[in-house]
């Protein structure tokens, strides 16, 4: 077997580090969606294909120059990079939808009173994730591919992940407060109906008395 030179080894290391991020995102995306995201699977399939082209040369199955090896290592990285950004994009939308589904039935008052962190931290961070993570449409959308930016975007996703735990933790208090609010609202309405009822009865009685007095000859 031919050994990898320093440049090739460096690219392979980047590929391994990127795959670590990508795999974590893929597992998390499947947990959230309960479905496999096909575009990312296609990219991984292509990345594997390019990597095998490199091994075919290194194991002497065929002869190609070092440019061929480097081009295919770069292509492996690019496919994994694209899979990673496809997953980041997919996950941020799923996270927003899941958080929306969790809190949509609570009133603003309940959220403010019981869960102030929701408006102070969670909503701004979700909105920021929607703005900050770029979509991968072409090389120019992403700029210079590097692992540092991937790490930063993965941290945004991880941050939102912790919010789910907080929302679940607060869920019993939110439900309790919301129910209490609804009960108080219902009681208030019942009191109001009772007052309207009494007013109606009194008005009817007064009306009856007045008409009796008018109709009765003096």
């Amino acid at each position, binding site marked *: 077997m031919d050994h990898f030179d320093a440049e090739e080894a460096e690219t392979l290391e980047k590929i391994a580090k990127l795959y670590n991020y990508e795999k974590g995102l893929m597992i998390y995306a*499947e947990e959230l*969606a*309960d*479905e*496999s*995201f*096909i*575009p990312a*699977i*296609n990219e991984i*399939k*292509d990345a594997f*294909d390019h990597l*095998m*082209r490199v091994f*075919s040369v290194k194991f002497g*199955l*065929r002869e190609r120059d070092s440019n061929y090896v480097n081009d295919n290592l770069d292509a492996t990285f690019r496919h994994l990079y694209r899979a990673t950004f496809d997953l980041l994009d*997919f996950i941020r*939308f799923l996270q*927003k*939808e899941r*958080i*929306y589904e969790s*809190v*949509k039935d*609570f009133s*603003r008052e309940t*959220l403010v009173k019981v869960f102030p962190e929701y408006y102070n931290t969670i*909503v701004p961070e*979700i*909105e920021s994730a*929607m703005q900050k993570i770029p979509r991968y449409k072409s090389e120019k959308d992403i700029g210079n591919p590097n692992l540092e930016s991937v790490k930063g975007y993965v941290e945004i996703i991880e941050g939102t992940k912790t919010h789910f735990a907080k929302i679940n933790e607060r869920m019993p208090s939110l439900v309790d407060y919301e129910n209490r609010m609804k009960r108080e609202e219902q009681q208030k309405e019942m009191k109001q109906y009772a007052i309207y009822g009494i007013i109606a009865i009194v008005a009817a009685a007064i009306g009856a008395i007045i008409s009796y007095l008018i109709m009765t000859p003096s």
Partner: protein
Amino acid sequence: MTKKKDVWDIDLPQIKFNRESTKQQAQKYRMGNVKLALGRGRTREEFEKDRKRILELRLP
């Protein structure tokens, strides 16, 4: 005589996924990914529709 293209350098075809036909022909897919065999996959086209819908959601 045309030279046969090296199979190593031929790009693999993309996975074409159709939820309904996969479910109908589940037997044929039982060797692969379990989720896909059950018709549980999301295509880019489906995600594009979801993304428009979710973008319009306003968090309470």
